[in-house]
């Protein structure tokens, strides 16, 4: 009966209570949402590349190498000579090696020269490989395979011609060698989606009539003549390496890092990803801190409404007291009320989270390649909810103690 009366009292103040519940619900939904995005981003970030044991490039920072070789952000300061590449491939620890040549672009997308091995060995989300959605892999020198975002953004179909520009965001386009879209990849949520992939030889072909970044005046070599030429590259930007046994990874890494002919750097993708996350994750942590603040604000709001309600409820308290309720019952009533408010808020917040996820999941997936799984609340979420409810009870102790003291001081007759 007391429970029913406490609930009735809440209903009688439906407007203010609704506002408080809403504030708590929103803050809980925001907090859980940020948490969800954070873990989702972290997971999908860590899942960008897997199955590769080492990434090799010219000596620079490990984060920088990771950024340009995997995320296509920034540029390599130096290349790896073809000879070094061959030397590394010849090492007994190497199971497979895939060269990557970067530096050209198509519209806003990066062009990457590589071998067919890339499609075989590049893995993401632990063991997922690249799949061709339409068309097929490169068979001809001027064939390209484009990522899902490239196809979608530029509206490309199989067979469409493509012009590759030298340098990034440069306006000097390699007009003479029209490439062709041979295949479109399935969406992966990785930077591959935003990449135009060509063969290593194609990168050489583009630059036949070019020297130090400028076109040699008056010189245009016809495509069929280019096909006859030796298109072995002189250098590559980076290489992905798989070792024969995980135990050999460190030995190979040491060998490459101390390669005498050229300053090279070999990194473990997992370690570099973590290092990079340490930088990127800072923003996420700040976001989390903000959403914690929002939860705290909502709880302070709860406390404020409880304090404000004390005055209008002095008579209610006096009636309880006169009917034999001890001040402890009064205290319990307020804490109970706070519990009901936060519980309701937390549940509505949870519902809002799932509704939001349900709406946002496909959008976020297609826009950012970020997959947010819709799962029943895990231990972590339940812990957060329990924490918020407990915090609500604790926060309500202050007004409850005040009610306790008031009900002792008032006696049972409150002046009207």
């Amino acid at each position, binding site marked *: 009966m007391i429970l029913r009366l406490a609930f*009735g009292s809440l209903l*009688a103040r439906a407007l203010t209570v609704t506002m408080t519940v809403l504030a708590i619900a929103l803050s809980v939904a925001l907090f859980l949402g940020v948490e969800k995005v954070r873990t989702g981003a972290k997971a999908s970030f860590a899942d960008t590349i897997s199955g590769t044991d080492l990434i090799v490039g010219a000596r620079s920072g490990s984060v920088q190498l990771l950024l340009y070789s995997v995320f296509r952000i920034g540029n390599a300061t130096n290349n790896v000579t073809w000879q070094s590449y061959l030397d590394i491939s010849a090492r007994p620890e190497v199971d497979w090696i895939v060269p990557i040549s970067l530096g050209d672009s198509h519209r806003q997308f990066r062009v990457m020269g590589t071998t067919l091995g890339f499609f075989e060995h590049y893995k993401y989300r632990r063991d997922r490989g690249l799949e061709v959605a339409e068309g097929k892999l490169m068979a001809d020198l001027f064939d390209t395979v484009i990522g899902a975002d490239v196809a979608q953004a530029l509206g490309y179909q199989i067979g469409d011609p493509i012009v590759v520009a030298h340098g990034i965001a440069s306006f000097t386009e390699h007009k003479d060698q029209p490439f062709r879209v041979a295949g479109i990849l399935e969406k992966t949520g990785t930077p591959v989606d935003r990449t135009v992939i060509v063969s290593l030889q194609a990168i050489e072909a583009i630059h036949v009539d070019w020297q130090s970044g400028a076109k040699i005046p008056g010189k245009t070599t016809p495509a069929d003549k280019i096909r006859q030429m030796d298109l072995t590259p002189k250098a590559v930007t980076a290489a992905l390496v798989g070792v024969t046994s995980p135990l050999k990874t460190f030995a190979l890494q040491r060998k490459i890092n101390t390669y005498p002919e050229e300053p090279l750097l070999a990194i473990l993708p997992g370690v570099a990803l973590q290092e990079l996350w340490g930088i990127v994750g800072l923003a996420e942590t700040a976001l989390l801190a903000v959403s914690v603040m929002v939860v705290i604000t909502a709880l302070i709001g709860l406390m404020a409404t409880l304090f404000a309600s004390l005055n209008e409820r002095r008579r209610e308290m006096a009636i309880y007291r006169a*009917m*034999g309720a001890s001040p*402890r*019952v009064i205290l319990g009533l307020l804490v109970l009320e706070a519990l009901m408010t936060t519980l309701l808020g937390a549940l509505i917040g949870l519902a809002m989270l799932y509704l939001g996820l349900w709406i946002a999941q496909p959008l976020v997936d297609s826009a950012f390649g970020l997959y947010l799984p819709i799962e029943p609340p895990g231990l972590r979420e339940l812990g957060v909810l329990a924490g918020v409810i407990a915090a609500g009870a604790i926060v309500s102790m202050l007004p409850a103690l005040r009610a306790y003291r008031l009900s002792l001081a008032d*006696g049972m*007759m409150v002046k009207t």
Partner: protein
Amino acid sequence: MAPIISLQDVQFRWPGRTGFGLSVPQFELARGEAVLLLGASGSGKSTLLSLIGGTVLASQGTVRVAGEDIASLPGGRRDRFRAEQIGMIFQQFNLLPFGSVLDNITLPLRFAPERRKRAGDVQRAAAGLCAALALPEGLLTAKAATLSVGQQQRVAVARALIGTPPLLIADEPTSALDETAQGQFLDLMFQQIRAQRSGLLMVSHDPRMADRFDRVIEMADFLHVERPAA
């Protein structure tokens, strides 16, 4: 049997700046006796009732209800003792407006197990009291806030009577009612307390209803008010 109320050399003062205080050398109310206590507004009538109800405690002297020195009871037991022994009626706003009439009537039983046992079938008891107090049938499930003031006061009487506590305390219960409603209210209340043989201490500033009571006393006759020198 001990008198239902007995005050001996009681002194009390409100904390804070108002500093209103009162002292009662001696006051008694026999079991089943109906006493009207007359006093001007601000003369300390409600304060005296709070002392008897045990929500505030005297600094000196003893307040006994049904022979029990209420100051000697620990806080929780004193609250329960109040619920067991005393039915309480205020001037107005007696009820929890958001609760049903039934919930309001049975509220004291929640804190008084003995009284609940005496009430027997709680719902029947509540319905019986409502009928005896001329409240329309089917009112039990209505929300208290939807009742007229006169009905609310009668529901308060039903709440004070349920489980037949030996003492009723009424703090100007008729001052919010018009004259005809006052008469009807008093008729019904007296019928019930006489039937239950409960004692009644009612305070008022209105001497017109005096003839219904066994005894009428003026505050000034037995009680000193102490006001701090301004």
